[in-house]
């Protein structure tokens, strides 16, 4: 796994730029080793996750080590059941690993209590789920304000200004007062992106955001996601099945049977 590592935040990637596969922002050549990569914001070290015990034991993540810099948007690819969701759930503080550590900005996530994990998710992580999972009885704007209310000490006026700004930026200015049922799938996913960014998180985790969308809509959503994440200097990890979405990311990690590797050329996955 020592070669599956992160680049520094320079801006030239001869390999990917040459292939033209990353039109929106060239990624970096892989660094040699995460442990040598001192500036990484997110560091996943030797993470392992085993479900069940004895003969029902399932090793969902066998060995995952990765480092992602601030401002990077990376893709996590892999066949069904390979452990993608499990890995980003651990990274986002939704699951505790059976072994290994996750640090975000130098602080250890794996050591947090249940209560601290709840606050950690509210303040430092933004999730975009496969289906938008918006609160059905709150308007687009209220969905954003709700997550702001989860963080202690946010002023209402500030939250409102931020929600309005985000919705405007996501092209939802005119939809702010609509309930989710009155929005299209793509619009809902955009609201979910706004919600993920609402509390100004360090990390944005996205699990198959395009699964419920057609290709054109999917591209639009991922493009927007990239723009927001890069523009705000956030760190993003997107789980996807869809190789066409990989071009919007800086780098690609692949997970196979629980083993995580950094890959230079995702086209190798094409069948």
């Amino acid at each position, binding site marked *: 796994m020592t070669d599956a590592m992160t680049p520094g935040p320079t801006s030239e990637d001869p390999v990917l730029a040459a292939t033209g596969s990353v039109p929106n922002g060239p990624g970096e050549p892989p660094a040699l080793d995460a442990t040598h990569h001192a500036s990484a914001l997110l560091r996943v070290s030797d993470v392992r996750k085993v479900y069940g015990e004895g003969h029902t034991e399932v090793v969902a993540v066998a060995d995952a080590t990765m480092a992602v810099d601030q401002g990077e948007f990376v893709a996590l690819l892999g066949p069904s059941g390979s452990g993608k969701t499990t890995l*980003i759930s651990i990274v986002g503080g939704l699951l505790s690993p059976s072994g290994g550590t996750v640090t975000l900005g130098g602080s250890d996530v794996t050591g947090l209590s249940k209560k601290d994990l709840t606050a950690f998710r509210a303040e430092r992580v933004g999730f975009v789920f*496969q289906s938008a999972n918006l609160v059905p*009885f709150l308007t687009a704007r209220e969905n954003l304000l709700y997550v702001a209310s989860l963080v202690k000490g946010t002023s209402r006026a500030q939250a409102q200004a931020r929600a309005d700004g985000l919705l405007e930026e996501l092209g939802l200015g005119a939809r702010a007062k609509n309930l989710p049922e009155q929005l299209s799938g793509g619009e809902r996913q955009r609201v979910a992106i706004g919600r993920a960014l609402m509390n100004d998180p360090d990390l944005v985790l996205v699990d198959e955001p395009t699964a419920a969308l057609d290709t054109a809509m999917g591209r639009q959503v991922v493009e927007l996601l990239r723009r927001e994440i890069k523009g705000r200097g956030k760190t993003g990890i997107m789980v996807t099945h869809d190789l066409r979405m990989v071009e919007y990311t800086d780098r690609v990690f692949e997970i196979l049977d629980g083993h995580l590797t950094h890959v230079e050329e995702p086209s190798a996955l094409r069948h």
Partner: protein
Amino acid sequence: MMLAIREIQRGKGRFATIVAALSLIVFLVLVLGALADGLFYGATGAVRSTSAAAYVFSGDAEGSLVRSRLDESDVAAVAAAPGVEQAGPVGVLLTGGAGPQGPVDLAVFGIEPGSAGTPTTLVEGRLPEAGEAGAAAADTRLRDDGVAVGSTIAVGGIPATIVGFVADSSYQLQPTLWTSVGTWREMRDAVRPELRGQPTAISAIAVVAPASTDLAQIAAAVTGATALSAEQTGLAIPGVEQQSSTLNSIIYTTLAVAGLVVALFFALLVLEKRELFAALKALGSSTGRLGRGVILQAAIASVLGVVLGALLARLFGLVIPPEVPTLFRTDTLVTIAIFTLVAGVVGALFSLRRIARIDPATAIGGAL
């Protein structure tokens, strides 16, 4: 909290269901409560609305004023008993009389005005004065029969002029007439010829004494007598205690059902929102925050249920025929409102465990 309130605002139909169910339950309980209070107050008014703290009965009376037989000479003995501040004769006669608009049911109370057993709930006119014969204060319920100050009510041909009205003084659901012992005895002799020739007989002796007084010592003043506090005397009236306990157990069972209804409703609601709650937990909402929302919703539903149920019950009270003894009391309403609120909140508490068990990890991926 915004979440809980918005859910009610945007899903009014669903909350209308639980509010409607709760208001019907509260309505039922309040009507039962009014009936229980009506029966109790109507049966016991005459022993609650006087100066007497206790009554002395003959031994065979089993606490019944109507069945008791004492003699006027016993009053002095009771008055001399330790702790007794005042003792007065009481004569009771359940009968019918002739009012200004026709026959009326009556409970005639013969008392010694100013002594123990004098009504304390005068609302109009005055009470008969000591030594005044042929005058009476009437229960306010007799106003419905056309009785007014100055009217005459005759019992067995013996007339009494109404000089005032007293409130809340029914006895065994019959309106009372408060007169002198002498007039009472004349009326008794007129309608119960078999009791004639007992010129010093009375029914019982009313006693004014501090609450701490030993009733057994008072009873000991008269051979074979018993003594009961005014409250016990009310409960000893045939049927009163049984009616109260039957109606009260129906009321409290129904309130427990209200708790169950709320518990089931919110359990279903939480079950339905499992996915949403998992997502909200993943976004950083705590079990406590989600639970408080559900409890707030239950409290709002209960308060609305109580308000609507109380309105319905009062409207129903307007159309209940006057023969049915009902009494809508504020204390009963407050008690029932508190019980409903508690039942609702306790019912919703059962959902907390369910919310706590929702795993935020199930929110992500959609495949789990």
